[in-house]
């Protein structure tokens, strides 16, 4: 289904839409309060943007440097051209782990948040191959129980009310029916997941930043689930999109200052963990994934979408996202950034996403790495049209309109006819809901007898 249809479905529930909008606006406001007092915040955005620009322009060398240093640290580095290869690599690592190889019985994996593994559809793949995968981020666990994709990259269950979570936990964790207190529900998840952490053979994490100069990577969480998982399991697999690299440790300071403030309005996430070498006797793997990224790198208009640090601020600020919900985008990364990443993956399937925006520009102003999201939305629209993915009505309508607007006489006449029609035709016809989407919720402007141009010719022309 396309975005307008899914959005309409979402917005039908008026009160729930209000609630969704206000919940996310609240996060946006927390973000504002966290950044206003920092005098250098805008400068940090510029720096972050420049550091990422630089890194992308030298990415092959940084990847090599990172790989070399990681290997020296005793970390195994793997490369995946696409999602499928990524999944196969992960499964191989699991099956060949010394404490698993040749063992029978279930293999258990705990996983902290990684949008990349969502993108690659890792969970269903591993489950099909006999690996039990438990998402340990609370929000992700909730949507995993419900068999839904996350609706937000930072707050995966933001589309759900506490009553919904209560129902889900009642069904899966046996919490009392009707229990909807977030404190009690979180406690139930804590007990349930602690068990999973202790039992796990493997821990998988995403990567927020990878540092070329040391071969290290940084993972940020509030719950502590990444560290808990990794430090209890024998094998740590970290999956990263190749754009996560930054050159040096000193650059982390810029990004760490921006990330949590932009994401949730916190000064920093509770845990900012730096992984460089595996613990004694344990294994650490890094899977570097392309999956369309090098292609995006080659598109000069869209390249800088790769600077994204997945803070989610563009979602929280987007007036369309807030009123249509993350699932209306039907892509791993929803919201404005999703709308400029998705056409690179499948232009046909996601052709309505660049149009799911008023081009208000709030996303670009909120983005901590200064991605010109709304400019790219505009540019993707041009690509959609060029590749013949526009609905025919729109395409030919626009061609006709352009012709008319380039010819003043035709324009003048056309305007006159339209205005007269509006004036003469009965309200019920001009405002027919099926025919005129404008009029579903809005009145048309009154049609004046004279256009400005006509008035001018009568009153002003010498």
């Amino acid at each position, binding site marked *: 289904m396309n975005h307008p249809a899914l959005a309409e479905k979402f917005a039908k529930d008026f009160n729930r839409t209000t609630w969704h909008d206000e919940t996310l606006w609240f996060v946006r406001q927390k973000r504002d309060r966290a950044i206003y007092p920092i005098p250098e915040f805008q400068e940090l955005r510029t720096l972050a943007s420049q550091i990422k620009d630089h890194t992308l322009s030298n990415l092959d060398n940084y990847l090599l440097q990172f790989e070399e240093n990681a290997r020296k640290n005793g970390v195994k580095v793997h490369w995946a051209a696409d999602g499928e290869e990524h999944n196969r690599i992960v499964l191989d690592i699991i099956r060949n782990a010394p404490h698993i190889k040749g063992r029978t019985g279930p293999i258990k994996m705990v996983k902290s948040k990684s949008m990349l593994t969502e993108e690659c559809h890792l969970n269903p793949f591993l489950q099909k191959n006999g690996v039990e995968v438990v998402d340990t981020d609370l929000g992700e666990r909730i949507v995993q129980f419900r068999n839904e994709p996350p609706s937000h990259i930072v707050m995966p269950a933001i589309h759900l009310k506490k009553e919904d979570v209560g129902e889900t936990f009642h069904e899966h964790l046996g919490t009392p029916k009707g229990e909807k207190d977030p404190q009690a529900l979180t406690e139930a998840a804590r007990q349930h997941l602690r068990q999973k952490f202790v039992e796990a053979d493997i821990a998988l994490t995403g990567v927020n930043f990878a540092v070329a100069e040391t071969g290290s990577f940084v993972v940020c969480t509030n719950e502590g689930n990444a560290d808990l998982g990794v430090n209890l399991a024998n094998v740590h697999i970290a999956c990263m999109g190749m754009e996560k690299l930054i050159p040096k440790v000193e650059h982390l300071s810029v990004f760490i200052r921006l990330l949590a403030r932009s994401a949730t309005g916190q000064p920093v996430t509770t845990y900012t963990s730096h992984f460089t070498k595996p613990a004694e006797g344990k294994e650490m793997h890094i899977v570097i994934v392309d999956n369309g990224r090098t292609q995006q790198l080659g598109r000069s208009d869209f390249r800088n979408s790769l600077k994204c640090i997945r803070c989610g601020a563009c979602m929280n600020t987007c007036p369309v996202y807030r009123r249509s919900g993350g699932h209306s985008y039907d892509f791993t990364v929803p919201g404005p950034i999703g709308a400029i990443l998705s056409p690179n993956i499948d232009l046909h399937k996601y052709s309505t996403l660049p149009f799911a925006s008023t081009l208000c520009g709030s996303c670009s*102003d909120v983005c901590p790495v200064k991605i010109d999201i709304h400019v790219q939305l505009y540019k993707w629209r*041009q690509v959609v*049209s060029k590749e013949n993915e526009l609905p025919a009505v729109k395409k030919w309508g626009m061609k006709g309109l352009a012709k008319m607007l380039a010819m003043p006489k035709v324009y003048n006449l056309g305007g006159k006819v339209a205005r007269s029609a509006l004036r003469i035709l009965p309200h019920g016809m001009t405002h027919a809901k099926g025919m005129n989407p404008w009029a579903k919720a809005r009145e*048309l402007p009154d049609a004046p007898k004279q256009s400005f141009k006509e008035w001018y*010719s009568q009153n002003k022309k010498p």
Partner: protein
Amino acid sequence: MKVALFIPCYVDQFYPNVGINTLQLLEKLGVEVAYPTQQTCCGQPMANSGCEQDSKEVYHHFVDTFADYDYVVTPSGSCTYHVRKHYDIIEQTPAVQKVRKGVYELVDFLENILKVEEIPIDFPYKVGLHLSCHGQRGLRQANASEITGDKGGQILTLLKKLKGIEITQLERNDECCGFGGSFCITEEAVSARMGQDRIADHVRHGTKVLTGGDMSCLMHLEGIVKRQQVQIKVMHIVEILNGSQP
């Protein structure tokens, strides 16, 4: 200083009054204004729909129409933004460069070219200001809440000069109204909802007159005001500045 007036297509057709007020205000301020009658549109409707290539001929027509003038003044931040930002796809002849540089949103022109200091008008109403995104974030005519807590901006500065005026303090000072050109049709549900939410914010905080610098946003908002039969009068900023009363 040769000044031309550009009246955007939908203003020409549906809001001739806004055009008339613009012309009168500029003349009142001593500007000699020409209105080249072959003008039509800046080309934005097609371009925002992805048909930038088709609108090239409209761009050329626009440039041909206005190439002789130092300034092209228009009561629309959105059209100004379009010409400045998106006319980069046609050959940058001296004429194109001149027009792109010379196009001015009306309030910007009043403040920064004419340096208007005084507006001797009584306007004893509670006025809600709707910032158009293209004026605000596109042309940077007002601060954006994403960047600073300071709500200052060009239209606000002018409004504050009116005697007796009270400005509505909104919960969301600069949220988009949801018009968005063809967005208002293709994404009707979200578009309408955004507009309704803006109006609700104004109603909650006592707006009696709703104004702004872009008639397109105001057309959309007025459509909702009328449908919901809310007691708010919608006026373009130029109508107020030229002395119209609600």
